[in-house]
């Protein structure tokens, strides 16, 4: 399991736009590098990211090897109801990880 850090405010006003920040530990090996013997290092990256809010998709991203190691992604979310925000990362070699955070409308 990779370490994933997500930053979602615990409470928000209805209709408020909050910033969500996510970071997951991953080497993001590009597939263009070689080891000291000249052997190519196979590509190993996170290719997909999805954010859902109470089951509905908010946004989705496709990553390419040009995304830095430990991919960071920040984006805004309009808070409509209390509920859970779920994040899923998928990638090469069957990589898949899901994290979630609760948000409460006050």
């Amino acid at each position, binding site marked *: 399991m990779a370490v994933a850090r997500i930053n979602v405010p615990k409470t928000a006003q209805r209709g408020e736009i909050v910033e969500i920040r996510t970071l997951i530990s991953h080497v993001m090996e590009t597939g263009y590098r070689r080891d000291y013997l000249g052997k190519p290092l196979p590509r190993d990256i996170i290719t997909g990211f999805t954010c859902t809010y109470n089951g509905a998709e*908010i946004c*989705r991203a496709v990553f390419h090897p040009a995304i*830095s190691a430990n991919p960071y992604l920040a*984006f805004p979310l309009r808070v409509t109801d209390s509920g859970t925000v779920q994040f899923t990362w998928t990638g090469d070699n069957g990589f898949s990880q899901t994290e979630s955070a609760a948000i409460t409308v006050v």
Partner: protein
Amino acid sequence: MKRKSRRQFLAAAGGLALAAAVPSTVTAQLNRTPPNNMPQVIARLVGSAKVNQGRVKLGLPPLVENGHLVPLTVSVESPMTEADYVKAIHVFTDKNPLPEVISFYLGPRSGGATFSTRVRLADSEDVVAIAQMSDGSFWSERVHVIVTTAACLEEL
């Protein structure tokens, strides 16, 4: 000591030449990466539509010290309502081994048409952000970035 015959000498020299040829095949493999084809990739994405300048703000430092970790922010002017929203934001570069960097898909539920991430830049190059609107139009901004330490060049 027995002196080597001409035949033995030539065989040894041939072996040496073969050994010298090995590293050159390694460099040939290193350079095997196909060239960056950003214009074709953008043309495939956009199709016959026109790419307009404006509405997209591409935030990148003008001078990058470390190409491995370059903060990148893209924001697009859009009301983000059901009728008018940004469908996708694509980022491309013209000198990385691959032109594609990230594709970010969003919709009216998003709080705004913006995102931030960190990217790798292999050279001093142009970075292009293209936003695809719900009405089918495309808007873009192109920024030139100077990179002092490039990503992708080091060996382990």
